[in-house]
């Protein structure tokens, strides 16, 4: 028996358990590969203080046969190019072909990647399904040459195998390009590559992203926010966030010579004085050597730390999107009538600081409202009237700016949305279901350590502290939505009132005339009734209530309201690219759109699944005008 026991390498383990990393089926695998590469690119750019400019290309690989249409193809080549700082030559093989190798695991700082598994796992998946190595080109500056590598992973040893390495001439002055060939399936819709790209853009309006789809389309997403998010700082662990085992390990590894010094130096928010207090309370000499604290003593120390009152960890390690940028992302990517964004103040779970941000886009936008108006000109037959579609809201979830596309139901965000009583805010909601309505709910969790339920990072674990913050953020969004809906309702009500009387007067007068045998001075009766109608609906005052004189979205901070008359609230301007950025040369179809007015990705937003809503409302007025 003993002879058969042997060590298992991480790579071997994950080869067999690839579903743990998000490679359970070909469709998801394709998404995971794209996601890992894009996340790495964005992390690299942001860390180096560069506004990211990313090109994603997914193409069908014919594999010797006649090329298949993308929906039927089973092999794809993914290429992700960024304008980041590049990677030095020696680091390239381990980064791309060694699992659990990375810069992000050991530090406490907010970043997309955490464990150093992602990109190498993607490469390993490609190697497993197609046998092809990962190709990397990287250049650190215009003065240095670009390095080209082809690497594979030695699954037994979890070590990189370099198949090819050379210096090449590269068109870009700086950056990294990764190419992988993987087995996958390209299908649009929910949890697709396209959706991932769209959602990424919403939470990262500072990114310029060009996506070349397998179908040969070029989707260009210009930068809509020209500031990099503030660089997050690295912090030391907070005493509340560690477990006993971790403390023991830290006691062994520390460079400090005394326990009190160790506490003060290796943890955040522990001052030398507090460290001495803790030692005293734990019955330890502050001078004791950390390596000498074992067994019972260490446990007492641990318990004392947990029961001591310590200030919450610093929050400058976080880099939330910010209300302005979030609003900008939502406004540019989703068609709607109302947008709002909320950033909660930082909070702490298990000693890890985090920030919850929530946003909301409601409605279908003025264009579609007009469309449905036009459709309604045909008289309706019995039973044909108002088919109220009860579509449910869409929840888009993010962790450290990365969209989460799978396992919605297991996620604390989804539960938070369900737990919010949307009915209080004028949105209908069945028991235990998402609220109904044309609505996109955005929730982002930024933290130094996002507690995922699995390695494939699909759902956020349900900590009470996190849930509470999510709920509070959603409630604030809901309150603002409620205020907006009430205002709109009131306006529509006034409008309807006036319309009703105007419409019905005609009918009543006609009928009366017929009853009187056609001998009625109809014009006079009509005028008398109309005068009364005008008086009763308040005449010009109604316009004021309707908000037609263009006052801002009162009392609704960080919100945008879109009406057929225009836009209220601070709308982010969409200028040309800021200076100092590489301007790509491909003149895609979207290019002209950038010149003047904001081009909203109307056709491509995920609203396409939605049915038309019949909005009882105003007749179409002027064309959309925007205070851009």
């Amino acid at each position, binding site marked *: 028996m003993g002879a058969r026991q042997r060590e298992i390498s991480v790579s071997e383990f994950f080869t067999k358990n690839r579903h743990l990393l998000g490679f359970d089926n070909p469709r998801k695998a394709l998404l995971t590969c794209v996601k890992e590469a894009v996340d790495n690119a964005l992390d690299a750019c942001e860390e180096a203080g560069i506004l990211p400019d990313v090109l994603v290309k997914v193409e069908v690989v014919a594999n010797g046969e006649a090329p298949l249409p993308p929906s039927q193809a089973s092999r794809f080549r993914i290429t992700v190019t960024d304008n980041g700082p590049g990677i030095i030559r020696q680091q390239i093989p381990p980064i791309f072909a060694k699992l659990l190798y990375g810069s992000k695991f050991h530090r406490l700082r907010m970043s997309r990647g955490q464990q150093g598994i992602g990109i190498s796992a993607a490469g390993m998946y490609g190697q497993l399904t197609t046998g092809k190595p990962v190709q990397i080109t990287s250049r650190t500056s215009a003065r240095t040459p670009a390095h080209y590598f082809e690497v594979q992973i030695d699954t037994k040893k979890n070590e990189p195998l370099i198949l090819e390495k050379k210096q090449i001439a590269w068109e870009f002055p700086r950056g990294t390009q990764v190419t992988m060939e993987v087995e996958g399936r390209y299908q649009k819709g929910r949890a697709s590559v396209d959706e991932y790209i769209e959602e990424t853009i919403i939470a990262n309006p500072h990114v310029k992203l060009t996506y070349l789809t397998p179908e040969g389309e070029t989707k260009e997403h210009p930068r809509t926010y020209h500031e990099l998010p503030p660089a997050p700082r690295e912090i030391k662990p907070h005493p509340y966030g560690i477990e006993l085992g971790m403390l023991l390990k830290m006691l062994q590894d520390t460079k400090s010579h005394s326990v009190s010094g160790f506490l003060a130096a290796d943890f955040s928010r522990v001052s030398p004085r507090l460290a001495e207090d803790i030692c005293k309370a734990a019955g330890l000499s502050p001078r004791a050597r950390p390596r000498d604290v074992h067994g019972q003593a260490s446990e007492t120390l641990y318990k004392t730390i947990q029961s001591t009152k310590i200030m919450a960890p610093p929050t400058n390690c976080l880099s939330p999107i910010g209300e302005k940028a979030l609003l900008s992302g939502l406004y540019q990517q989703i068609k709607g009538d109302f947008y709002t964004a909320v950033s909660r103040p930082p909070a702490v779970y298990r000693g890890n600081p985090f920030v919850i941000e929530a946003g909301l886009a409601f409605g279908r936008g003025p264009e579609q409202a007009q469309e449905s108006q036009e459709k*309604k*000109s*045909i*008289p*309706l037959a*019995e*039973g044909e*009237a108002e088919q109220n579609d009860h579509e449910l809201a869409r929840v888009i979830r993010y962790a450290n700016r990365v969209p989460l596309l799978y396992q919605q139901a297991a996620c604390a965000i989804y539960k938070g949305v369900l737990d919010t009583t949307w009915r209080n805010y004028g949105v209908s909601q069945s028991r235990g279901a998402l609220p109904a309505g044309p609505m996109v709910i955005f929730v982002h969790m930024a933290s130094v350590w996002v507690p995922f339920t699995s390695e494939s990072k699909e759902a956020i674990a349900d900590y009470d502290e996190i849930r509470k913050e999510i709920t509070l953020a959603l409630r604030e969004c809901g309150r603002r939505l409620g205020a907006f809906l009430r205002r709109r309702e009131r306006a529509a*009500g006034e409008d*309807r*009132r006036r*319309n*009703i*009387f105007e*419409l*019905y007067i*005609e*009918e*009543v007068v006609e*009928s*009366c*005339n*017929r*009853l*009187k*045998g*056609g*001998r*009625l001075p109809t014009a006079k*009766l009509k005028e*008398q*009734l109309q*005068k*009364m*109608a005008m008086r*009763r609906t308040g005449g010009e005052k109604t316009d004021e209530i309707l908000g037609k004189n263009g006052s801002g979205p009162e009392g609704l901070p960080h919100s945008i309201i879109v009406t057929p008359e225009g836009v209220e609230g601070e709308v982010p301007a969409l200028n040309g690219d800021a200076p100092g950025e590489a301007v790509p040369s491909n003149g895609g179809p979207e290019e002209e759109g950038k010149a003047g007015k904001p081009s909203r990705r109307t056709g491509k937003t995920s609203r396409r699944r939605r049915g038309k809503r019949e909005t009882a409302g105003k007749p179409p007025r002027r064309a959309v005008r925007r205070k851009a």
Partner: protein
Amino acid sequence: MAQKARKPSAVEKKLVSVADVVIAAAQRRKDPTLAIPVRALSNVTFNARNGLIELGKRKQARSFFNVGMAKKFMQTVLVADALCELQRANLTTSLREIYYRTKHTIKNSHENTLDTQDESDPLIEDLEVTLAALREELHVRAENAGSVVGPLVLVDDGDRVDCARLGKGGYSVPSIVEPEYLQITRCTADFVLLVEKGTQWNRLSEDKFWRSHNCILLTGNGQPPRGVRRLARRLHEERQLPVYVLVDNDPWGYYIYSVIKQGSINLAFESQRMAIPKAKFIGLSSGDPESHGLPRNVGIKLNDKDIARARELLGYTWFQKKSWQEEIKRMLSSGLKYELDALANKDFQYLTKKYLPRKLKEKDWLD
């Protein structure tokens, strides 16, 4: 419209008055308002003296300049217009045709004047009550949903109808049986038997029960329509015939009987000319299964709805007689209801040959 100088009928004048309300209000810059009597349990009272359910005095205002009522007001005027058109053309029509006649899309909008017939039907009833005009006078008819056989001769549109010579099928009772339309020329029967169910009426008709007991057999197939009720009332009033009601033994049967006897809540304004306060409940009584030896297994368990309805009946003022309270409570305590058809368990002709003769002989009925 303005053809010959025809003298407008009283009903026509009443309908035109709806237009007058609007015109007069507009002139005085007032909100045009119709006062419509409330048709609900809260606005009916049982008059123990004449044994009728009567409509109270409460009225609801339907005004035009009220967002909630504007549409209804407009529809009411439209319906009045359509009814007036009927008067002038001297036609009768159905509720559904009124609905179609008044339905159109409002100018400059996508809105229909009416969406379903459910909207126009109550408006006609509203106008009936408000204008104190009977549905027949408004020239609106329901479907023919009743039959009659027996020693009775009628004249309908000039045709002589001898109800003793119409085979098993009998004469189909039209919805309007007012003397202008239908005359009773001869009637030699001793009483009227109003049967709830068409199937049992068929049984009696086939067995020529009317001949052996010299009676008129009437049915309304369930809740009897106005025509049947009105015909029974006319026979009762003009020919002094007693009316016996034969219904299933369930709360719905009791209620059918009470509608025939005292009038209904919804049409309380018509009690005066429809109700037959002296009508008798001949069966099926909750005591009958025992006295006629019906086995328990032909009963049907009362469901929740039945029980709730029976409890409601117990509360109605016109069911307060001791005998009636006992009758309903007996059904509730047995927990079973019986259909008339269940009598076939004993014999196909049990109803004709045994049950009714015995009931009539023993004068075993409830008042």
